[in-house]
């Protein structure tokens, strides 16, 4: 019994010597306040979970489809990159509401550990009219590692994303860097491997009668490495600057967007850029998503820049100014 008594005594003694930094109390108080506020909104059905706007891209990556019902919004064909953005009819959901999808995804995300990715299956999506939903009734979601330290994040962008120029800490209209993460602003770009779990999830849904089932999956191996920097101002408006490192090999990407999406060809720092405004975004509570994108070359490395916002009050001009600032 000697060792048992000794370890017990040592723990008692050591516990008396530990102390909690008051700064930690303040931090937890702040974090808890935000979490409680979010929880309260969730109870009222208002929780904003802006995680999955890029799901259209994820769907497109899964299939490489082509339908008679689409019209071409714009096309990029430069070097090794071919990208088509198509507007689709009948993208509206009839079997499930965006709120139900957001809630289902939020529930799953809450159960994930930091760094984990999950594939979520919605049985209702399979009953939708649009073949894109029928063929891909799953949505990838992750709980990302967040880097809040600016110096560490710029080092990640420089070393991992191979950016030869630094992004600014501030953007026009008083936007400041808030945090960075690997990946797109919302959702996960899930490649072909997403299909291998579809059958398993369909079976589980049938057996259990659950309309939403999910599983933790290995980190998606997307051909595109994305890094997103989030900027916020005092009005809590948000701008995402995403750097997508494309492979040097030939890459064909097809993206889908609802037919109501507006498009303008614009210029950013002398480069041809594309502005889209989608007012039927499935996964943002405002239903809106604006994006400016352009393809650039960093040495031999093709890089796609996306400057986007889900804040309805951010104007096209503000996005253009932010895009220009990101290149200086």
């Amino acid at each position, binding site marked *: 019994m000697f*060792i*048992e008594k*000794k*370890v*017990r005594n*040592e*723990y008692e*003694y*050591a*516990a008396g*010597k*530990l*102390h*909690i*930094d008051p*700064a*930690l*109390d303040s*931090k*937890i*108080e702040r*974090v*808890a*306040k935000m*979490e*409680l506020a979010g*929880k*309260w909104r969730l*109870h009222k059905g208002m929780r904003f979970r802006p995680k999955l706007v890029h799901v259209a891209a994820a769907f497109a990556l899964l299939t490489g489809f082509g339908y008679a019902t689409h019209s071409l919004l714009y096309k990029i064909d430069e070097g090794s990159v071919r990208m088509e953005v198509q507007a689709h009819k009948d993208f509206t959901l009839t079997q499930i509401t965006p709120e139900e999808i957001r809630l289902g995804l939020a529930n799953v995300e*809450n159960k994930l*550990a*930091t*760094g*984990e990715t999950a594939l979520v299956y919605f049985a209702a999506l399979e009953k939708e009219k649009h073949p894109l939903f029928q063929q891909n009734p799953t949505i990838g979601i992750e709980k990302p*590692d967040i*880097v809040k*330290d600016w*110096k*560490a994040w710029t*080092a*990640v962008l420089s*070393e*991992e994303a191979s950016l030869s120029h630094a992004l600014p800490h501030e953007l026009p209209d008083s936007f400041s860097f808030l945090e960075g993460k*690997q990946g797109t602003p919302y959702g996960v770009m899930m490649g072909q491997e997403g299909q291998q779990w579809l059958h398993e999830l369909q079976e589980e849904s049938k057996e259990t009668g659950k309309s939403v089932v999910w599983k933790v999956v290995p*980190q998606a191996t997307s051909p595109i490495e994305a890094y997103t920097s989030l900027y916020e101002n005092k009005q809590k408006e948000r701008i995402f600057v995403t750097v997508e490192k494309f492979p040097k090999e030939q890459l064909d990407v097809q993206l889908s967007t609802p037919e109501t999406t507006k498009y303008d060809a614009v210029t950013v720092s002398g480069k041809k850029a594309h502005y889209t405004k989608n007012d039927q975004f499935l996964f943002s509570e405002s239903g809106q998503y604006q994006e400016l994108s352009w393809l650039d070359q960093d040495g031999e490395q093709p890089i796609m820049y996306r400057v986007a916002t889900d804040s309805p009050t951010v104007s096209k001009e503000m996005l253009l100014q932010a895009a220009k600032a990101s290149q200086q």
Partner: protein
Amino acid sequence: MKEENVKPWLIRMRRGEEEAFQEVYRATRTYAYNLIYFLAPHKQDVDDMMSEVYVELIRSIDRYDVEQPFIPWFNGLIVRQVRNWNRSIWRRFRLLERVKEKGYEAPVAGMEDKLGAISDELEVIPAVEKLSFKLKEIVVLRYYQNCSLEEIAAILQIPLGTVKSRHHLAMKKLREHFEHRINHEEASFHVH
């Protein structure tokens, strides 16, 4: 921490009352911190783990059955968060590792070992720290938390037999370490 002092606040916390959370935090913070500290493999992560524990408490409080004792349920939550942290840490490491190799050291607050001042007085805890996490969590719950083996099985959601065998193995390793240490000290004494 007394169950009866915390429970009324837990019920109010479920309704989203901030004040109730503050009371729960005040009543549980030392308890939670010490347990996390003794479980954590990397002590510099303890503050972040502590934050995660309380975020998780808020998120999962609706699943807590108020008819059941709170402390074992809270113990389970803490152990799961520390485990999850361990699982995810490799990704964090991977992301920053190559950056670190280039000469940038990410700042980490409170890196100093809080038990550094009394480390010379501790003989067994340093050996517990060297055990695998599966063995260490048994030792911490049994000898710091005074949980019975049955309670540990319930907290970790593993069979009682597994708890017994891990406990046996952990104590065997600690005894071996301690005997080796005593022999070594005796040998040193003879040299002098």
